[in-house]
């Protein structure tokens, strides 16, 4: 469907570097990156608003690198919607059809149809100035979808919507994708990625640093940055030691991890995934676990409960439910045991 081949683009201090990316028909591709990572620039290159310094953009086996914006039939919905302020909602949605000099009656029917699908039929005659963020979003989406784009590009479509609108729009996007629309969606929110994507790419400092299915990316983060995205906060720099056919990682504070399998190399970075990570008042008995004794140093309220900080020589983080806090009678200063299986540990290169 879409292939980006060795795309480079320099913009002042920032550069998109060696971007290679492939999106197949019907895919919901989520490009995950922090602000300033280059994700919007990449979308603008695909849409033709900007041009790469070198590299190729192939869409449906056709080289469109040099094709003009207006001939690409790639729809883009901007983060700020870019709804035309001097036109009504109808005028906005009809704009692409008018630009193609379509017949008035057919314009009307088609606008009404897409408006119904987007649930904005009731605001067609309104000025755009007083629309809410969610309505603007739908207008922008309707205006783009009316030309049946070969590829739909979405720039942070969920970022400025409140939670209930977010769920509505997610449902809408999912249905759109199910009906065959190929979508590339850029976002900084890995929750969006998990709930929508059929494939995920992570972009950092202008480079795509990992790509794969949602499971692949979040269960096997290829580096610390991707891991952070997966909500993993427990990282440890260790030196590797071997003993009786097993490998151990030892931190500078002498915390000793039993590692999955035999690990070569000297200095490595460990990350401990959240699954199977337990906190308890008594020492866990399972020998397969890594077990440490520590002290709760901080309990901070978070979105879903609390965030515990536990000092066991090195600092561990663990999110917990409020009910767990009560059950274990947790308080700052209290001694606890933490445990996790060796398979929760991912060993990365030391840099």
């Amino acid at each position, binding site marked *: 469907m879409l292939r980006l081949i060795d795309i480079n683009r320099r913009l002042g201090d920032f550069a998109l570097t060696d971007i290679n990316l492939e999106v197949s028909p019907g895919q919901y591709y989520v490009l995950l990156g922090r*602000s*300033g*990572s*280059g*994700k*919007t*620039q990449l979308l603008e290159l695909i*849409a*033709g*608003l900007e041009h790469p310094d070198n590299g190729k953009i192939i869409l449906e086996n056709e080289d469109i690198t040099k094709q003009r*914006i*207006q001939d690409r*039939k*790639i*729809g*883009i919905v*901007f*983060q*700020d*919607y*870019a*709804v*035309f*302020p*001097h036109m009504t909602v109808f005028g906005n949605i009809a*704009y*692409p059809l008018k*630009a*193609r000099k379509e017949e008035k009656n057919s314009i009307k029917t088609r606008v009404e149809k897409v408006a119904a699908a987007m649930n904005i039929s009731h605001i067609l005659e309104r000025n755009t*100035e007083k629309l809410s963020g969610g309505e603007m979003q739908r207008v922008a989406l309707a*205006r*783009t979808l009316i*030309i049946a784009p070969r590829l739909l590009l979405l*720039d*942070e479509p969920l970022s400025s919507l409140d939670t209930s609108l977010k769920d509505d729009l997610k449902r809408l996007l999912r249905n759109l994708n199910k009906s065959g629309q190929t979508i590339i969606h850029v976002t900084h929110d890995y929750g969006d990625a998990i709930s929508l994507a059929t494939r995920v790419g992570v972009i950092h400092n202008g480079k795509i640093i990992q790509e794969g299915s949602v499971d692949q990316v979040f269960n096997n983060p290829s580096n610390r940055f991707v891991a952070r995205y997966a909500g993993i906060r427990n990282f440890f720099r260790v030196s590797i030691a071997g003993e009786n056919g097993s490998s151990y990682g030892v931190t500078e504070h002498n915390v000793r991890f039993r590692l999955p399998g035999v690990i070569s190399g000297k200095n490595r970075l460990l990350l401990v995934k959240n699954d199977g990570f337990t906190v308890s008042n008594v020492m866990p008995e399972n020998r397969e676990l890594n077990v440490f004794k520590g002290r709760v140093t901080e309990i901070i309220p978070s979105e879903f409960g609390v965030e515990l900080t536990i000092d066991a020589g090195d600092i561990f983080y663990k999110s917990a439910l409020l009910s767990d806090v009560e059950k274990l009678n947790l308080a700052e200063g209290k001694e606890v045991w933490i445990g996790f299986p060796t398979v929760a540990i991912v060993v990365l290169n030391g840099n």
Partner: protein
Amino acid sequence: MILSAVVLLFIIAPLAGMFLHTGGSQFLETVEDKEVLQSVWLTIWVSFASTLIFSLGAIPLAWLLARKNFPAKNIIQGIIDLPIVLPHTAAGIALLGFISRDGILGKAASTLGLDLVNHPAGIALAMAFVSLPFLINAARDGFMAVPERLEKAALNLGASYTKVFFTISLPLAWRSITTGFVMMFARGMSEFGAIVIIAYHPMVAPVLIYERFSSYGLNYARPAAVFFILIALIFLIVLRLFSLKRKEKFISTDAQTD
């Protein structure tokens, strides 16, 4: 406070004094004076035509200045502002050399049987020369206030560059352009220095006032001056109405998105 009042008074007092010194009968006489009416009418339509014709080139130029980066853009911007700082008589002299029969434009015009000197067309050129910066700068600011993102969105939706210009850029910058248009028109109307060198006749209102003053004296020139000031005031009020409403509220200017 007091100083501000003094400055204001300095602007108001001479004008008020002039109005007070002009008797009603004198004023009515002037309003019915064919020579005065003709010159006022000439001033208005020539300035209007000059503004209209030059806007055809000035507005696209303003768009280019607002949107595109090209070599020597700063120099071009400087050239556009040049007429504002030139003494207008000097501008008139320069222009005369250009449009008299020995000049490039003059030669071209005379092959068409047109003598630009002492002709409304010459007056229009003189007016445009000194007043164009007002339109170009206002229109440029107007285009700059249009978020570029909207133009890009329109292109993405399949509109051609021309279509985008006429359906997005121009309508959104329209108020600034109109303000610039009125400013250029009003500035052209009040021009004296450049015009008097190009065309003493036919007489535009500022030249007529000067002529009456130098031939017949203050009392004779005053009613014509009052009449013309009243006309100019009307345009000033129109201009103010436009600029008061000039709250161009668009969506955030080309938002920082990444």
